Structures are given as structure tokens and as C-alpha cells.
């Protein structure tokens, strides 16, 4: 067995394989299929300050090699997470990493403060792809000023490792990564979904009730991979790679591009066992290539 452990600032992961927010619920839905304790971590479903019912149905459209979703952060709010869900999942022998959402900077800060109290939580992921209600609903993560403002405020409030999750819907992802790192991010994760759209030609109507939605799955992998590589070269903090990872080879490609860890998202819907299979697959790759540690892969791309 090769050494698979990686470090994301103060967060020690037994292996680089984690699951992406919104695609793995709270992990409990998967225990019939896999031993979730074999994962490096679980980024749980997006949390907001208040209970949210999310967007109307239909919320999903299948696309070529991927899917669009417009779930809209449906969740029962931070207090429900703290009082009901956390006690149920904190015993998992893997890191539970909450995904923090807000529609104002104050929301983000309040959610972060409540998570500070939870002993078994070592890191949080700040999702800056949320719509900023004070800027007409434009996502925080699309403009440098609002991304920096959100990160700065949460950094001040946060007593844990702070991972900032970047939106890919920007012109220069490396510049955005630098900006949030300067504002205090201990690590960055990328990418979130790409804004997309699906039309039902027969009905001459949009497929999603919200018209547009977020594209994920293998369709986005080449772009995500390029963005991870650009960000890896631009910042000195750990990078977590996300986007269309379906198997161990995809995960290894992200690590070669510079990712210290990876998140498996949409692939969990196709095969709920895939995350744990990726852990084994990375180990097999390392052994086959006579590597003793997964660190030998990180940024090892020869160009």
C-alpha cells in the first residue's frame, strides 16, 4: 500500500479522494453501497442560514456526457445541520467538510460562526457561487471585489481551515484564485458547475424551471483540468480538483495538473461505489508505477 495521505493546510486526509458538495448528501445515503470511512473526506450538501426549499421542478436535464441542475441549495438550514445531522454523522471515520453558502456576507459569516462550535469539523468550504442579493443576484464568485469581500469576512470569522470553492464562470480563474488566497483562503477547490441551458425543441420551452442551470459531469472535465493547472501555477496553497471525475485515471490527471486532493461529484449518481473505487485505483496506479507516495503525482505533469 502506497502512502495516500495528503495535507490541506491543517486538514489531514487519509487519501486525496473526497466527494463533492450536493452530490453525496450527508454520506448516509451511500452506506448501503460503500464504506464511507474509506474516503479522505465528504463535502456535505450546501448549507444556508435558513431553511430553503430550493428551485421549482424540473431541476435536472441530462446532456451529452453530463447533466444540468438547478436544485437551488435546498437544505434545512444550519441549525438543523448542527442539531440533527451533525450528531448523526460525526462518528464517521472521515472528515466531514460543510459547504457554506450565503446570499449576503452576513449570512456567510453567521453560518461560519455556527460551524466553529463543532469539534469534529476541521475545515469548511466556502461556496462563492451563490447569488449576491445586494448585487442583483450576480454570483459572489464572478466579480473579484465580491469574491474578496466574502472571503475576507469569512476568514475573520472562521476558526478552521478555509477552503474557497471557485466558480468557473469567470474570465481569469488564476486571477480569482490569487485574489481569494490573498484574502485569506487556506486552499482553493475548483470547479463548481458551469452555467448552461437546455431547451425542449418539441415543446419550445426550457427544460429547467429556472431556464438556466449548472453543468457538471465528464462534459466539463477538460475545462476543469485546464483551470486546475492554471490555478496550481498561480497560487502556493493546496488546490482541490473537481469536474467530471468518473474514475481513478481522471483523478490522477487532476493530481498531475496540480491538485492535492480531488472531489467526485456527478459520478456518484452513475455508480454510488465509484468514490471508494477511485481510492483503490489511485493506489494501484502508484504501485504499478513504483511510487511510494501520492505526493509524487501532485503537479508532476511533464510539459
Amino acid at each position: 500500500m502506497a502512502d495516500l495521505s495528503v495535507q490541506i493546510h491543517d486538514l489531514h486526509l487519509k487519501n486525496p479522494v473526497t466527494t463533492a458538495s450536493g452530490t453525496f448528501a450527508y454520506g448516509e445515503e451511500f452506506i448501503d453501497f460503500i464504506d464511507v470511512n474509506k474516503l479522505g473526506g465528504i463535502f456535505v450538501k450546501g448549507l444556508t442560514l435558513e431553511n430553503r426549499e430550493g428551485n421549482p421542478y424540473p431541476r435536472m436535464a441530462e446532456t451529452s456526457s453530463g447533466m444540468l441542475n438547478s436544485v437551488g441549495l435546498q437544505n434545512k438550514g444550519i441549525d438543523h445541520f448542527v442539531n440533527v445531522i451533525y450528531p448523526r454523522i460525526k462518528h464517521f471515520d472521515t472528515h466531514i467538510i460543510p459547504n457554506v453558502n450565503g446570499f449576503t456576507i452576513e449570512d456567510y459569516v453567521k453560518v461560519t460562526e455556527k460551524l466553529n462550535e463543532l469539534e469534529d469539523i476541521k475545515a469548511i468550504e466556502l461556496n462563492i457561487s451563490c447569488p449576491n442579493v445586494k448585487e442583483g443576484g450576480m454570483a459572489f464568485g464572478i466579480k473579484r471585489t465580491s469574491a474578496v469581500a466574502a472571503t475576507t469576512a469569512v476568514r475573520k470569522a472562521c476558526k478552521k481551515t478555509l477552503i474557497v470553492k471557485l466558480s468557473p464562470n469567470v474570465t481569469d480563474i488564476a486571477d480569482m484564485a490569487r485574489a481569494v488566497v490573498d484574502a485569506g483562503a487556506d486552499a482553493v477547490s475548483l470547479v463548481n458547475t458551469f452555467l448552461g441551458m437546455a431547451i425542449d425543441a418539441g415543446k419550445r420551452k426550457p427544460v429547467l424551471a429556472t431556464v438556466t442551470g449548472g453543468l457538471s459531469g465528464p462534459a466539463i472535465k477538460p475545462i476543469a483540468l485546464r483551470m486546475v493547472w492554471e490555478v496550481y501555477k498561480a497560487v502556493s496553497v493546496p488546490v482541490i480538483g473537481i469536474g467530471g471525475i468518473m474514475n481513478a485515471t481522471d483523478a490522477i490527471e487532476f493530481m498531475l495538473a496540480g491538485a492535492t486532493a480531488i472531489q467526485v461529484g456527478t459520478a456518484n449518481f452513475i455508480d454510488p461505489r465509484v468514490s471508494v473505487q477511485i481510492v483503490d485505483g489511485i493506489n494501484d496506479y502508484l504501485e504499478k508505477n513504483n511510487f511510494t507516495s501520492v505526493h509524487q503525482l501532485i503537479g508532476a505533469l511533464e510539459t
Partner: protein
Amino acid sequence: MKRIEDFTVIGHHWLNYENFLIELEAPEELPDIRAGNFAEVLLKNSPGTFLRRPFSIFEVDKEKNSLTFYIKVIGKGTRYLGKLRKGEKLNIIYPLGNAFSNPYHDKVLMVGGGSGIAPFVLLGRQLREKGIRMTFLFGGREKDNILMTERFEEFGKVFVTTEDGSVGEKGLVTQHSILAKRPLEYGMIYTCGPDPMMKAIAHIAKQHQIPCEVSLENTMACGIGACLCCIVETNTGNKCVCTDGPVFNVNDLTWQT
């Protein structure tokens, strides 16, 4: 407990140009499966499909250790399943979802349209064991949409409507004469099929104060409660059709009936 397993195709039978039955043998002894449960089928080599496809479990054969699905061709995925041959493997997650509940008294009506009749064979068998008297009402556009009525005759009386009158009474299911009887007395109406049909049936059930359960077919990404894509609005907030459903009591839904 949910399972993920590779099944083998052991039977494939076209009922007409757009409907077929596919029988799959399980690799392990089948668990208990209840009427209303469904499965998520992976279409591994089907070009252009990405997500699994959900189908109700139509038939369980404990002796052959097999499941049968009744499928109507809609698009790419169902067309692919229509072309599978005996011996091919299919990866399946099952049994998923909740189940129909037992009626409050011993006479029920099941109303189905199209592939919506799929869960009623298991339901029929389950209720027969309890001595419940069943009536079936199936509707479709034309004769070709009315299939396998004989499968249900062992459980109870079967009535049919078609929009063109080619078989059974002419009109929509909701216009069938058995629904015009007064008093309309059933301990439960179960319905599965196109949304407008289910809503119309739910409306009739409400008028006569008959409890009514519907089985919904919302589009799904995961089928296991992980994505929250399949929701339906209920009186207590959005619920997942894949885990809280697919069967709902209409009184819990915010449907305008």
C-alpha cells in the same frame, strides 16, 4: 437495504412496436420487494445516455430469481433496452422508493395509463393475499396502448377506455361508466400514469372522499436521495420522489385537484 448488482437478461419480449417486457436474473437471492418499488438501470453501452433510468418493478419471480420490467420506448435509453439480447448484463440499483399502503377497507380501484400499469401486478398479488377485492381501469389513446389486461384478470375485473373507442369504452379513463356509479365506494384508489390522468383521478377521489395514492414518475438523476433533483411539492415542503416516494397520498401533495 439497497443493492447494486449486475443482472443478466434472461427474457425479452416485445408486446407491440413500442412496449416490451425485459426479464433479468439476479446474481444473488432477491430481497423483499414491495409494490411501488423501482430500480435504477445503468445503460452502459447506450450511446448518448449518461444517467441511469428509473423503472418500476413489474414482476418478481422468486423461483427464477428474476425481476421483470414493463417498458415503453420513449427515447434513447428505452430504445437501447429494447435491443438487448439474452445473456447481456445490466447493472441495477434496487429496491428503491417506498410502497403503496394497504387500503382502509376491502375494495379498491387501480387506475393506470400506459406504462403506469407496471406496479399493479405486484400490488394485485399483495392485496389478494389480504383478501381485498380489486377493480382495474386502464386507459389509452387507442387499442395499441392497452396491453396485458389479461394479466390482471386473476386479481379482479378489468375495465378499459380508449380515446378513439377501438377497445373498451370511448373516452378518457375519468369518463368511464364505473366512475359514474353512485355511491362510488372504494377503500382506496391507486393510480399511476401520465400526470393529467393522475390529477383527474385524484380529483374524483377527493370528491367522493376516497383515499388516493399516486405513483409519480419525476425525472431523476440519482434515485437514492443524493441529488434532490426529483422533488415534488408537499404540504410539508419539498420531498424526494425517489426516497419519500414514488408513492404519495394525494392529500399530502399541493396538487390543485
